[in-house]
């Protein structure tokens, strides 16, 4: 046992130190240390661009059990800055698996740590708030690592969307995953003639795009900083604002663009896209103490009274008490009464803080894609 495994250290900006074993690539990584309480879907989570510049702690102790495969990805690469687990599985088994999580991390050059008391870490983050941290597999002093963690920029005021966004616009053709079939790529002849949805990519998860295609849209993904004129030139029937990392208030160009587009075309926003829509409507955002990350948060649809079990991944939220005139609070988080959804009905704009596309997590809120499609349809026929 001893000596076989390489050591790693996690240092937090407040001076806390956790000793463990290295997993993934050798080296050092820094970012905001956060935790996710999902019990399945680590590959989807690791590839979610919203985790950029974050070191992710899994509360689920065993990670790596089912290996990794070519299908369960939400972007082109691993996005987390690093990962922290209680018990990393070197061995794996699943009929779809292609390789081990360890190899995958090494290929993606991701540093991680295993074997630490993750529950103690989570309690610490819960009590003192999410904070910057560094994982290192190099042999350096704890004090040095704490200093490095302290030197990292705060998440507040950080625009990460532009970093993870696509460089150039592209069309999306893939539908959702189906058992025994996998993904289907929609041929052009099937997509032509469909209403066009332009999706601002602030760090979009693939599954959102897949669901848009499944719901009858032709989808064009555009860079975060695409100008309003460029968008309008595409004559879109719908606008989608994606999820993404960082502080929404720092995505000023996005807020500006959305402000100009509100009322012109139906808009649907998810997560960061929701916050940006809120900001554009005049609802400010703030940083949560340790955020919401997991697959079990109850959200009540205030229009229907129905409770959805939702997938969450956000460190910022829209201020509930400062809803601008005419903006309805449509969804409420039942755990802490934070804003989970809003809409400006006459403008055909709505958004949710959580992730109706799930992947991973419960699919309770998939109806929102259908509602978006219906909204777009009513705008088209109404004109």
């Amino acid at each position, binding site marked *: *046992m*001893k000596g076989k495994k390489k050591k790693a250290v996690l240092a937090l900006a407040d001076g806390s130190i*956790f000793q463990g074993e290295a997993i993934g690539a050798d080296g050092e990584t820094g970012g905001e240390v956060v*935790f996710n*309480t*999902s*019990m*399945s*879907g680590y*590959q*989807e989570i690791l590839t979610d661009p919203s985790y950029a510049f974050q070191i992710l702690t899994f*509360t*689920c*102790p*065993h990670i790596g*059990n*089912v290996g990794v*495969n070519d*299908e*369960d990805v939400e972007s082109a690469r691993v996005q987390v800055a690093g990962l922290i687990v*209680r*018990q990393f*599985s070197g*061995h*794996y*088994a*699943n*009929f*779809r698996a292609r390789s081990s999580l360890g190899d995958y991390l090494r290929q993606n050059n991701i540093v991680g740590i295993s074997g*630490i*008391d*993750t*529950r*103690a870490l*989570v*309690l610490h983050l*819960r009590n003192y708030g999410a904070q910057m941290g560094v994982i290192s597999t190099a042999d350096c002093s704890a004090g040095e690592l704490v200093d490095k963690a302290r030197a990292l920029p705060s998440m507040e005021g950080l625009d990460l969307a532009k970093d993870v966004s696509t460089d150039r616009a592209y069309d999306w053709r893939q539908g959702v*995953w189906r*058992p*025994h079939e996998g993904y289907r790529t929609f041929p052009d002849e099937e997509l032509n003639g469909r209403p066009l949805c332009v999706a601002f990519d602030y760090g979009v998860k693939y599954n959102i795009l897949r669901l848009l295609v499944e719901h009858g849209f032709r989808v064009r993904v555009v860079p975060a900083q695409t100008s309003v004129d460029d968008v309008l030139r595409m004559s879109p029937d719908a606008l989608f604002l994606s999820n993404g990392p960082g502080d929404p208030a720092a995505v000023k160009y996005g807020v500006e663009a959305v402000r100009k587009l509100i009322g012109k075309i139906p808009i649907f926003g998810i997560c960061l896209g929701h916050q940006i829509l809120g900001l554009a409507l005049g609802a400010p955002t703030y940083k949560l103490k340790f955020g919401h990350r*997991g*697959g*079990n*948060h*109850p959200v*009540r649809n205030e229009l229907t*009274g*129905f*409770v959805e*079990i939702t997938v969450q991944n956000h460190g910022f939220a829209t201020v509930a008490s400062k809803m601008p005139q005419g903006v309805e609070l449509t969804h409420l988080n*039942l*755990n802490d009464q934070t804003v989970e959804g809003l809409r400006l009905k006459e403008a055909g704009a709505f958004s949710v803080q959580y992730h109706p596309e*799930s*992947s*991973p*997590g*419960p*699919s309770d809120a998939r109806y929102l894609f259908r509602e978006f499609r219906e909204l777009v349809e009513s705008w088209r026929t109404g004109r």
Partner: protein
Amino acid sequence: MPRRTDIKSILLIGSGPIVIGQACEFDYSGTQAVKALKEEGYRVILVNSNPATIMTDQNLADRTYIEPITCEFVTRVIEKERPDALLPTIGGQTGLNVTLELAEAGVLEKYSVELIGASVEAIKAAEDREKFKEVVAKCGLESARSRIASTMPQARATAAYLGFPLIIRPSRTLGGTGSAIVYGAAEFEDKVRWGFECSPIHEVLLEESLIGWKEIELEIMRDRRNNAVVVCGIENIDPMGLHTGDSVTVAPVQTLTDKEYQRLRDGALTLMGAIGVDTGGSNVQFAVDPKTGRQIVIEMNPRVSRSSALASKATGFPIAKIAAKLAAGYSLDELPNDITKKTPASFEPSIDYVVVKIPRFTFEKFEGADRTLGTQMKSVGEAMAIGRTFCEALQKACRSLETDRDGLLGGPESRETNIAALKEKAAALNPSRIFQIARLLELGSSPEEIYSLAGYDPWFAGEMRRIVEMEAEIRAAGLDALDDFALLTAKRLGCSDRRLARLLEVDEALVRSRRHAAGIRPAFKTVDTCAAEFSSDTPYMYSTYERDSDAEPTARKKIIILGGGPNRIGQGLEFDYCCVHAAFALREAGFETIMVNCNPETVSTDYDTSDRLYFEPLTLEDVLEIVHRENPWGVIVQYGGQTPLRLAEALQEQGVPIIGTSPAAIDLTEDRRKFSDLLDRVGLRQSESGTAATGEEAAAVAERIGFPLLVRPSFVLGGRAMAIIHNHQELNKYIQESVSVSFDRPVLLDRFLDNATEVDVDAVCDGTDVVVAGVVEHIELAGVHSGDSAFMLPAQSLGLGIIAEIERATRALALACNVEGLMNVQFAICNRELYVLEVNPRASRSVPFVSKVTGVPWAKVAARVMAGETLRELDTLGTYGKVLAFAQYSAAAARIPYVAVKESVFPFAKFRGVDTVLGPEMRSTGEVMGVGDTAAGGFYRAQVAAGTSLPLGGTAFLSVRDADKDGAVLLAKKLNKLGFKLVGTRGTAAYLSKRGVEIEEINKVRDGSPHIVDRLLSGGIDMVINTPEGTGPLLDSRSIRSTATELALPLFTTLAAAVSAVEAIEQLKRGKKFEVRPIQEYLSLIAISN
């Protein structure tokens, strides 16, 4: 949607006696449901025939009917109480079945009783296999290919269509009774026939085999607004083919990707809606093909279940409690999460630990039973363990089983070195399979080989191999070279000190001190439903080897109660009842109460029961670590049965403050010689006895005191390995075989008192005063284990003189043994002389029954006594009634104007080919109680509750011993008058016909055919009254009794029982309706407490 105000009273139906497949998890869920509905202000009416439950405590429901759970009796309850609603989903299959009967009989409609929770249509859609498959298909889900058959030709045709192997599932049975896997045509017809027999509607389902597929179960909740959540996913390590109750299971699901898991979740929720379960909990079982991911729906239970109890304990989400509130009209988001109190119940628990459940078998009790497992459940209990990793939880679960295992490895399998032989064993479904597989890994098999051999997912086998590797390193290192890191690694993999001691070939204490010196102690973390995302105040704890602990101990005065571990025959619900009562009573007395137990089915492991719950194995190491952390004022070991008692001495040596009767006093009653001296001192008689460590010694003892002998190893519970021996040959056989049962303790031999009346006495002593809680009279053949025997309270055939003598003897014994707390004494009355059979200074199996009948919670009284209060103080306090009135028991008992009868139920239907004759080895799984104004009334209800129906006519067989012949005359004449034809063996028939009884003589078996057993088998007998002369194995009576049991005929082995039965028949024939009456009403008739 707040609670409904249009209904005021709700009827709940419990699950009745503990049977395999339906155990104390229904006491847990039932108790939760009663409490939850009362909290909401409803009038709760309960029917449950099981007296050993917390749910039937007099102060829990408003009206508690300890009556048979049959359509007839429940109808009477409905007639009397006129409840507005019936919640049918908390009493297991029994509750559902009776509800369906009530609905079909039109009772619900007639009395306008609304079904809440699940409608008749929903229950039928889930229960009826054909309908269920239709619904599954409608939901876009897949079922296994199958067809129903109710005739053999249909079955044959279906087999031709499906091919082998295939599965047989009889319709509407419990715990998979009669289910089987058929591998080929040779065994097919026999198993189909058996399936027909087991099904109450003579129907079986034949199904495509999914053997080897992953088996996953989801526990789901739904409210009236269609909000639905998955509480927990449970994965079976053992793949499909083994009943989930007999499988080792893990939560959360470990080997599925999210895409696979979400499909199961979506499917389960869609299905629950489509079946039409309005509100409450259900579970859906799936099979998942590990090679392709194909998913098949196996079944759904539209009610709380064994696995919902497990899921509740595994997650901290109280399914039954929430289900009850949902049935009352609330929606999930209106109810708080029970653990965090701040967040709502409309969420899905996230758990940051691993839970392993492992089944407990008791095949040693059923010699000759087929140990092959399959789709019919055969385990009698289970242990659950929590750890931060799978390995830790698995190893803790293994040592929780109390089968003398220290962990996954090192059990009896470790002696096996022949890989081929081991593989052959492990390929078959059997109770030790996981240990055989662990041994194979130790011998070098790879996880992939294990997968192809047994279908274990390679991930599980791979984790198990980590334990193997760790142990090899420990062994190689030795204690001196063992570094702290390796020691910590071993502990983190769940390795017990005892296992380490074996590996290092040193004393366990040495390992412990080495570990403590290195500062390696467990951390204690909480089960909080949310993976630490929110704060919670509920201290539901488990140990793990981690850096930090969660909930620090308080500075209050605390008492730790050690529970009973997994259910097994001889140690079940009764002991859990006592532990729960101790927790309640001591909380009432102002102590902080701390429960330690590892049985997920129980009320004791409900985190509401005590102030703090440690879900931990009951081993010395685990208990010592908790004691170290909590520093209790006292520890109670005498309530959880043999499990904690076994630890008593070692705990005391470590300075643990054990309260109540001291371990030394316990030892006094177990040590034959000391005990004999004590009896001499107090002037009490015991049958002649001796002890023997070898066969020669035993033979000598036998020569001295003569046969028959009652023989047993010392320190046993539930009559383990106890036998009545009639000759030297049997004695030799016993000595040879029992050595392995208990090698380091001698064998005890007593002269067996044939023809005696046996009596169980429960008493409480505070060192000064003694109160006798109850003197129960066995109405079963002497020599039948008291746990198996039917008995009555108050005693009916004992004179006041003998009762007074029993009272005096009990008092003398309690004081002489320095009992502080509960004591149970078994007496035999033989030729009007009183003999002491045994004394147990601890909680006994009859305590709940006696408490229910007398209305005094004796376990609570005794717990307060153990914590330092006197009986006089408690009497003055009055919380538990005028307990001192029982100092004059005979006077107190005389004021009980009704008779309660306990009857036992047996699992013989699950174990074909087993000898069904009752003896000194306990084999019943549960009990029922019947109460009536007369012995006949109580007896009748107990019989009905136990599933025996008394015949109103036909043929009765009589064979009675000489001592009973006089009494039998009256009985036989009465039977004649009632229109029964009588047949009797020569002696009985001659004696009776001489006295004017019409009786036909029939051959004994040894007289040759046609004899009585032939007649029984041909269906010519409706009732058997057999009070045999002695208990010899070669006697005819034995084959008569075993045949009667197999045929499920009413069988009475004492005159007292027969007289009660015949009286009941007489009353029934006169058209008497046995009225129902709640226990509260019965108790109000006792004048004692005024």
